[in-house]
């Protein structure tokens, strides 16, 4: 029984064009890292710094790819069955709920592990350089396997509790990326205090990136006189295994609930549209209730923009309020830490954290705002209606982009306390702060246009969201390579690449002592971001124009 489900899942996943393309790009990225970082000298040198760096970058890329790919496989696994009404069919068969969950999980894991195994031939090249021992290899692959399991289960658990693929994907990516980057923030802020070190170190170990760093960077794990500190990679494996067990339990409980009669919070089932309409006026909807907007759309108004606002932001898109609320909370925490000066961190650390928080937020929340822009119209089967109307590609794209900016405004409002403190403490001139604002805005624009271009080329929102995250990760993370491996780049190329990175450009503006060896990067960064955003928008425009024409 179980094997038939696994076989079906595996077949439907592996035989798609998407999987082949993903596998190709995945191997291309990994092989690219190895070829690019292959040392010119010092073959068979264990001590060679470059060979060690190569393994580090390779494994970080590997883990990052696993983190990016796992949600694409599992986050839609259960929810798509619900959307296609096939989940009930599975429960109506002789399969038991645990078999369904185990089948889905094992199939997704096998696909993920196949990807991990794919990397092995590329990784083996590290042996020729003596850069990595067999014991380390086993540990590295254990981390990758555990990361696949953990990320996959996060996707599966969220998928079981979501009602649409789009929401499931958004939540999974946000959660997984938050898990990758978030645990570093307390460490950056509080590691100067010996009292906090064991706590923040243990917290940082939640991130798979810290596990890899712990394994491959000597001295990464801090020393403490208060208590014994375990290496981050050991802690991570424990966390990931425990987390996986808990998540599997959650998915299983959900599956057993689904298999039984529907559980309702109330005995009374409301299916009268008039009553439903009345109930939707309650909190929080009464704040932004569509009933208040009795006025028709103005002639000058972009109907797509207005419709998106009505149907998404104020018609039920509560997640954006939650996002803004989260921003506000984190922002207030950072503000309190700054003002209270609880630890002796430097202004440079504070500002770098604030910028890192803002850019991280952009990376986490911005791409999905537009990644569903065109694909959702296709999935909702609205594209024919749009073709028949007089809405053109420009109106459609600009409407989607505008409404996304409104959402960004909500997030920006949530971050205001943090910036008030920076202004209040007079750490920087207004001009410097405006420059940072411009850098953030250009990153937002890049995130939004990367979502739009992905959405215009791909058919599924899940794929578009993954592609948008991928594009943004390439821009934001790969451009940090010159910082990690300065000797691999000529000065001109290093400056050029670093200028593409929003984090580096912004930190350089607010901390003049950071990246002082390079020229001022922000102008180049703004230019690059705007050109790339423009290019993405033009590509999206061309493709949407084609999409709105009669099909061939």
């Amino acid at each position, binding site marked *: 029984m179980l094997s038939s489900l696994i076989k079906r899942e595996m077949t439907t996943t592996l035989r798609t064009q998407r999987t082949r393309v993903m596998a190709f790009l995945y191997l291309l990225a990994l092989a690219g890292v190895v070829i690019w970082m292959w040392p010119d000298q010092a073959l068979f040198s264990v001590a060679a710094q470059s060979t060690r760096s190569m393994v580090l970058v390779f494994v970080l890329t590997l883990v990052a790819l696993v983190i990016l790919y796992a949600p694409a496989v599992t986050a839609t696994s259960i929810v798509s069955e619900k959307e296609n009404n096939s989940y009930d069919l599975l429960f109506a068969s002789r399969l038991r709920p645990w078999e369904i969950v185990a089948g889905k999980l094992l199939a997704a894991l096998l696909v993920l592990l196949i990807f991990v195994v794919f990397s092995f031939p590329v990784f083996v090249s590290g042996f020729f350089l003596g850069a990595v021992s067999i014991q380390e290899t086993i540990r590295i692959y254990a981390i990758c396997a555990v990361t696949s399991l953990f990320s996959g289960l996060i996707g599966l658990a969220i998928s079981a509790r979501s009602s649409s693929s789009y929401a499931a994907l958004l939540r999974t990516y946000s959660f997984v990326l938050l898990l990758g980057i978030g645990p570093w923030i307390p460490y950056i802020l509080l590691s100067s205090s010996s009292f906090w070190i064991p706590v923040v170190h243990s917290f940082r170990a939640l991130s798979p990136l810290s596990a890899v760093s712990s394994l491959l960077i000597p001295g990464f794990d801090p020393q403490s006189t208060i208590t014994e500190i375990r290496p981050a990679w050991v802690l991570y494996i424990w966390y990931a295994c425990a987390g996986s067990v808990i998540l599997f339990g959650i998915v299983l409980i959900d599956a057993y609930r689904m298999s039984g009669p529907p559980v309702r919070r109330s005995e009374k089932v409301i*299916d009268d549209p008039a009553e439903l*309409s009345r109930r939707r006026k309650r909190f929080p909807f009464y704040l932004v209730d569509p009933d208040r907007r009795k006025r*028709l759309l103005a002639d000058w108004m972009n109907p797509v923009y207005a419709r998106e606002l009505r149907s998404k932001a104020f018609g*039920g898109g509560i997640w954006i309020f939650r996002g803004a609320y989260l921003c506000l909370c984190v922002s207030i925490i950072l503000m309190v830490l700054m003002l209270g000066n609880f630890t002796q961190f430097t202004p440079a650390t504070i500002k770098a954290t604030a910028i890192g928080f803002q850019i991280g937020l952009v990376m986490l929340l911005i791409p999905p705002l537009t990644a569903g822009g065109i694909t959702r119209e296709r999935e909702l089967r609205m594209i024919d*209606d749009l073709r028949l109307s007089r809405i053109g590609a420009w109106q459609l794209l600009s409407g989607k982009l505008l409404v996304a900016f409104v959402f960004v405004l909500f997030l920006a409002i949530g971050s205001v306390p943090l910036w008030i403190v920076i202004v209040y403490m007079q750490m920087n001139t207004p001009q410097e702060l405006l420059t940072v604002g411009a850098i953030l805005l250009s990153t937002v624009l890049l995130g939004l246009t990367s979502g739009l271009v992905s959405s215009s080329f791909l058919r599924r929102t899940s794929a578009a969201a993954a592609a948008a995250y991928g594009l943004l990760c390439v821009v934001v993370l790969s451009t940090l390579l010159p910082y990690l491996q300065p000797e691999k780049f000529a000065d001109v190329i290093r400056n050029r690449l670093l200028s593409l990175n929003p984090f580096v450009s912004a930190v350089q503006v607010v901390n003049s002592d950071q990246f002082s060896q390079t020229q001022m990067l922000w102008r180049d960064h703004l230019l690059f971001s705007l050109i790339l955003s423009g290019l993405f928008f033009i590509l999206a425009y061309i493709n949407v124009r084609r999409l709105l024409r009669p099909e061939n």
Partner: protein
Amino acid sequence: MIAIEGLTKRYRDILALSDLNLQIGAGKIFGYIGPNGAGKTTTIRIIAGLLKPTSGKVLIAGVDVVANPRAARDVVGFLPDSFGVYQGMRVWEYLDFFGAAYRIPRKKRQDKVDQALSHTGADAMRDYFIESLSHGMRQRVGLAKTLLHDPKVLLLDEPTNGLDPRARIEFRELLIRLKSMDKTLIVSSHILPELATICDHIGIIEQGKLLQYGSVQDVMKTVQQRRAIDIEFSTGAGAAIEYLKSVHDEENLKVAESVGELVRVEFSGSDEEIVELLNGLVTNGHKVLWYSESLMDLEQVYMKVTQQAKAGSRNIDGE
């Protein structure tokens, strides 16, 4: 109103539509009948300007849809078999959006929305959220959306699919109301009896080829070459059968069925010849209780036409 000439659509190796020719007058309802995959939706999508044909021409109110699909949008309203809705929007907001999308000025839009809701009997749903509506209600809202820009031609692809009997009857009445508003309608449907009652013309399509086309009565007459006549006798049906066989040769009259005193004959003759046949029976002492001519219904016509087409294609394959 609609003129289709030599319309052909090919998807790689599959011929979806082959040399289709149709003429549909203004204010008429055209019923488009065919099995799944016959080419109905392909035809409708081409007429709507959503799909490019491989060759051929479609003229709607003088506008060439193939050459100028944008211009055709003003005269065509299309309701697909299943259409999506935006979540979290009320019915009037949904219609307001599409009104704006069709560039209807705000001053006129309120009236247009009201009229569309009124024509489709959806006034009461104005403030409901679309996702909370039943399938039948959604179809009404969908139709209201297609009426917003006052198109002359309405293309309805399987509009009654999934509707309960009451909703189907109401929808049928709605189509008749639209016809009275001088709209030209093309309606595809699997539920043939409902087309028979409302359509002025029908077309039967199979494997991309139009097999029959004309008014419902003409198509039936073409298909039903012999008239089926039921005659019930008070007594002596056997003797009456013998009499009929002796008077008419088998090419002219065939006794198809005999149950008790009820006899069904297939007769190829005019109305006058039927009068003579009945007169002969009565004058020869056969006690005719009643008689009636039973016409084939649309389902029988459809089955006969498509079976003939299949048999024809098998013969060609055999050759």
